[in-house]
């Protein structure tokens, strides 16, 4: 009688344990599906590092150009001539194009490894939500350039880039928002130091990208391998 009872107890126990670990698996599966279906998770950390490096190189070239006109010793510059503005815009455009192209190539590589398509629904959602604040900021920066408040361009671009990152974070790896917060704060601080815009740019787009990309590469990509 007793043996039967224990046998029964044992069977009951083991089925209960089995189902609870099954339920745990269920929850893992649910989380995985929710993320995979609504967030684009193949962003490459390496592309962040590369973007940062391009930004720093671009800033160096920009510094040289400004130096040619105003002398390197001044340290700061209120850039005003048209010719140099165009040169600086050209440098910025090259940096952006290089960063975007590298980003797309590296992300594509990672997406293929994850068995995701680069332009699926989640990627498009991410892109749209990233571009709304970014495009707004870009247009505003051009208007500010037009009105002649050149000193505010660096803060404005940093702030709006930060907002774009925060907005995009809901559609990709959530911690992109910390990169966003850092850039927003940096941009607000930069408004108080007009004339040092280039240095703030170098920190925000260069150093922050390298730090964030590096952390992401080490923490996320290496552990998931």
């Amino acid at each position: 009688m007793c043996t039967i009872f224990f046998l029964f107890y044992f069977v009951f126990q083991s089925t209960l344990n089995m189902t609870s670990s099954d339920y745990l698996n269920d929850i893992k599966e649910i989380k995985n599906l929710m993320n995979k279906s609504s967030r684009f998770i193949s962003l490459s950390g390496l592309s962040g590092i590369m973007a940062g490096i391009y930004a720093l190189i671009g800033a160096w070239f920009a510094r040289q150009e400004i130096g040619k006109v105003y002398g390197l010793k001044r340290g700061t510059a209120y850039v005003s001539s048209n010719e140099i503005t165009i040169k600086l815009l050209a440098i910025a455009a090259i940096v952006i194009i290089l960063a975007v192209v590298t980003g797309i190539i590296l992300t594509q590589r990672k997406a293929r490894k994850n068995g995701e398509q680069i332009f699926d629904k989640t990627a498009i959602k991410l892109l749209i939500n990233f571009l709304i604040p970014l495009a707004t900021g870009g247009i505003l920066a051009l208007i500010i350039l037009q009105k002649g408040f050149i000193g505010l361009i660096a803060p404005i671009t940093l702030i709006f880039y930060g907002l774009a990152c925060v907005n995009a974070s809901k559609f990709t790896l959530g911690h992109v928002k910390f990169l966003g917060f850092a850039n927003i704060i940096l941009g607000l601080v930069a408004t108080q130091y007009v004339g040092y815009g280039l240095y703030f740019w170098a920190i925000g787009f260069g150093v922050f990208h390298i730090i964030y990309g590096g952390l992401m590469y080490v923490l996320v990509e290496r552990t998931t391998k």
Partner: protein
Amino acid sequence: MSIITNINKAFDHRIRLGIMSILMVNEFADFKMLKELLSITDGNLASHAKALEKVEYIKVEKQFIGRKPNTRYSATQLGKLAFKKHIEALEQLIKKSES
């Protein structure tokens, strides 16, 4: 009251649970998207979707995009509520078995 009272029979299958999870965080999902995310066959997905439709947890809309027929799914209020309850029940079960 048994602790498994709130475990919902309608979600007692990996695929049905999967369909519901996806529809909780996406306004809509079409047949192809569900199929790819869950990596299952057409027939399999259709039958499980039907089961969820029957209890009115999901809504099915058939339409044409150009000439191609397109079936898209969305979760109903009832379905969302049931899913939440189910998850809470799962949590309870896991907590109980851990303590």
